[in-house]
C-alpha cells in the first residue's frame, strides 16, 4: 500500500535516495539542481523506481527529462499522487 503522500514525506524519500547516489546531505536543498548535485539519468531512473515502489506514482522517461531540481521532483510526485 502506498505511503501517505505529503510534501514532507516525499521530500524525505527523495533526500534519502539522493544521498545514496553521492551528494552531500547539506547540498540537497529544494532549489538544488540535479546537475549541481551530480545526479545523472541513471540516478533519476532509480529515484523513479523508489518513488513508484513507495507511493505508486509512476514517473516516465519524459517526466524525468523535465524535472531539474529537487523541488521539481517533490512537486511532481505530490501532484501526481493527489
Amino acid at each position, binding site marked *: 500500500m502506498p505511503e501517505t503522500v505529503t510534501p514532507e514525506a516525499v521530500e524525505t524519500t527523495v533526500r534519502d535516495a539522493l544521498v545514496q547516489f553521492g551528494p552531500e546531505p547539506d547540498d540537497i536543498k529544494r532549489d538544488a539542481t540535479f546537475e549541481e548535485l551530480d545526479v545523472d539519468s*541513471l540516478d533519476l*531512473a*532509480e529515484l523513479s*523506481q523508489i518513488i513508484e515502489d513507495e507511493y505508486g506514482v509512476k514517473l516516465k522517461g519524459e517526466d524525468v527529462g523535465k524535472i531539474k531540481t529537487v523541488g521539481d521532483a517533490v512537486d511532481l510526485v505530490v501532484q501526481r499522487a493527489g
Partner: protein
Amino acid sequence: MSQKTRPEGATALVTGASKGIGAAVAIALAEDGWNVGVNYRSDKEGAERTVKAIEDAGGKAIAVEGDVSDANGVPDALISKLEDELGPVLALVNNAGITADGLAIQLEDEDWDKVIDTNLTAAFRMTRRAMRPMIKARYGRVINIASVVGPRANAGQSNYAAAKAGLVGFTKTVATEVARRGVTVNAVAPGFIATSMTEDLPDAALDVVPAKRAGTPEEVAAAVRFLASDAAGYVTGSTLYVDGGMSA
C-alpha cells in the same frame, strides 16, 4: 557503490529453457548455486525435465510459463512470480529464440516480425524489467544469447542475423548504462551447436569450423556460467564467442 558477491537467494531466469542451450544453461547456473526460473512457452514437459535435473542434483528451480514475445505483461509476471517463490531475480539469460528462414527477397513480413520480436524485442522487454531488482541490489547479470550469425553472414537468415546483431548492439549500450551499479551485461555468441535448431544442417556446414565439430549446449552453458559468476564482475559489454574458432 557496487556489490561484488552474489546475494543470498539470488535467482536466475533463463528464457526458453525447456531444451537445448537454455536447458543446459539452467542446469549449469543451478550447479553454481543460483535458484533458477526455467521459462518455457509451450514445452511444459521439457521445462519440467530441466527442473527435475536441477532438483536431482540438489538445486532449486521452478518452471515458469510465458511467451516472451508477448508484449502484455509477461516480463513482470515471470519476474514477480520468481521473486515470490525463489528470491530476487539477479541474473537474466535472454536465450529464447526462433528461426524463420528464407531469402530476404522472399521473406514474409510475419516471418521477419516474429524473429525480431522473439529474439530481440523480447530481450529488451525482459532486460528492462529485470534491471529493477538488479539496480536495487547493486548486483546483476544479464547474458544475451546472440550468435555468430549477425556479425557474420548466413544466407537465408537475414531476420535472424538482424536480430542477433541487434542483440550485440543492445548488449553494449545497456552495459554502459548500468555498469556502475554492479550490473554486467554481456553476450554469448554460439556457433554451430548440436541442438534441435541445427539438426537439419548438412555436415558440410562444419567445413568452416576450425574445430571440425559442432559444439555442445554444455559448452555454451559454461560460458554463461562464467559470465554470471562473481568472478566476471569486471566483464561487461563484451561478446564471448563459443564457436570452435569460426569467427577467428
